[in-house]
């Protein structure tokens, strides 16, 4: 029997954005983005094995302004997914479900993500020298 299209209540278009829901979908998005990061890692590892010339080529591409931008995206995704992932694991243990705690831990994750990304990039530039 053919599927009859039923009316659907609006949700995303009407429901107020909250830290909880935004962080939840960001966790999923960052996870998928990190899949792309895994591809980058594979490419980089293979280049390291291929030889000095190939590796230099890959490093140059990653080091370009666009490459660094992509890398920044991956850094943010990684730190966010890591920090929020720990938040998830704490929930799995049964802790932190009170609403004020959820918001506090949520903002902590956001701040930690930005701080860790900034720190790692500052260190990277210090080592590399721009």
């Amino acid at each position: 029997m053919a599927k009859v299209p039923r009316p659907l209540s609006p949700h995303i278009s009407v429901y107020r954005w909250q830290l909880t829901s935004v962080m939840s979908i960001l966790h999923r998005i960052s996870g998928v983005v990190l899949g792309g990061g895994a591809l980058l890692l594979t490419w980089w590892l293979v280049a390291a094995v291929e030889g000095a010339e190939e590796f230099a080529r890959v490093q140059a591409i990653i080091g370009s302004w666009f490459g660094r931008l992509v890398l920044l995206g991956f850094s943010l995704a990684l730190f966010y997914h890591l920090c929020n992932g720990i938040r998830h694991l704490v929930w799995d243990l049964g802790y932190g479900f009170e609403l004020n705690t959820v918001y506090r831990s949520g903002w902590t994750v956001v701040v930690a993500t930005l701080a860790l990304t900034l720190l790692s990039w500052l260190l990277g530039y210090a080592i590399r020298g721009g």
Partner: protein
Amino acid sequence: MTLRKSPIGRARGHGSAQEGTTQWWQQRLTAIALVPLSIWFVTSMVALTGAEQAQVAAWLASRRTAVMMTLLIVAGFYHLKLGLQVVIEDYVENQVMKLSVQVVVTFTCIALAFICIISVLKLAMGG
């Protein structure tokens, strides 16, 4: 270890399907492993900023690095596969499409993991 007690449960044998606690637990296990592994990975990558092939190859060739990197690859790609599986289950309605994408994702994760591991082993064994 068997999680399924009823005959129908055993017949269905939902191992890596989303139904059942196995998927949930393995996602958590890989997640826990990935906490220290990711921290190690990030600090290593920062330390290797702008490095040349010789330095990177030497770093990868050490046994400690090879072990850590392999663990990261295995845990990481498995965690990715499990995560993507859930995403596909949520968003892909067409059953044929869903199954096809799941198969492609699973095989891709395995293939990439092997490419990475063999590359690391090649360097570690002095290839």
